[in-house]
């Protein structure tokens, strides 16, 4: 069995890749996918510590995170579709005014 520290290190690397995606990519859909990657790396730490501490609570929390992520994706993609309809672009640098 691989020690838990290796899972946390892997999760930190995945989280950083996701954060870099949010910071450097300009396509709103790819930024959104990077956010999903960050959520997923947090889930990996939850499951690793649930295994380490023999507690089911971490896994239940991951279940909740998944449900929230599903809701977030539905609303977020609807927002992207609505923005694309009005601006014909999803470059997040172009989306700089609140007025539709």
């Amino acid at each position, binding site marked *: *069995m*691989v020690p*838990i*520290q290796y*899972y*946390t*290190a*892997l999760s*930190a*690397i*995945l*989280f*950083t*890749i*996701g*954060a*870099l*995606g949010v*910071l*450097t990519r*300009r*396509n709103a*859909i*790819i930024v*959104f*996918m*990077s956010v*999903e*990657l960050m959520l*997923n790396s947090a*889930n*990996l730490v939850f*499951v*690793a510590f*649930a*295994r380490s501490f*023999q507690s*089911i*609570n971490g*896994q*239940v929390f*991951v*279940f*909740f995170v998944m*449900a*929230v*992520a*599903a*809701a977030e*994706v*539905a609303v977020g*993609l*609807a*927002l*992207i*579709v*609505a923005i694309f309809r009005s601006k014909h*672009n*999803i*470059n997040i640098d172009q989306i700089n005014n609140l007025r539709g």
Partner: protein
Amino acid sequence: MLIDWIIFFGLAVVAIASGIGLLLSKNAIYAALNLIANFTAVAIFYLILAAPFIALAQIAVYAGAIMVLFLFVIMLLGAERLGGTSTLRWQRPLAIVLGLILIVETVLVFINRSGAIAPIVEVTADFGSPAAIGESLFSTYLLPFEVISVLLLAAMIGAIVLTRRRDQKA
């Protein structure tokens, strides 16, 4: 056990490589496919960590439903190559430096605190099974579970309202 380490590092390489593929791919479709590979690798980690229910939920919800929605929207908008022209100049190296600092700090924290982490012991066969999760979900976490159902309903209505065309009267 040597085989544990081989499986761990093999899957870690797949997860990190697909993450970097997501970061660097010019085409949004390739980025989505890379992310599906990443989710699948993480699902196998969940299986190793005695979480079979979470692993299959990961495949069904993340790699299935969520990523199909992403691919659908990318193809609907024809957004494969949109947003490619970057207006970032000095921000990109700064982002890389900050990301490296984040990695180093996180790894340092976990190396320094390794004494606080419980050693791995064997778990019983029904740990992380759907029955165990369900029991916890419907007793300790009953209220959050109900709140999640309201949240999903709100998200569904929100998605419908947001994508409704303005000229149509409701």
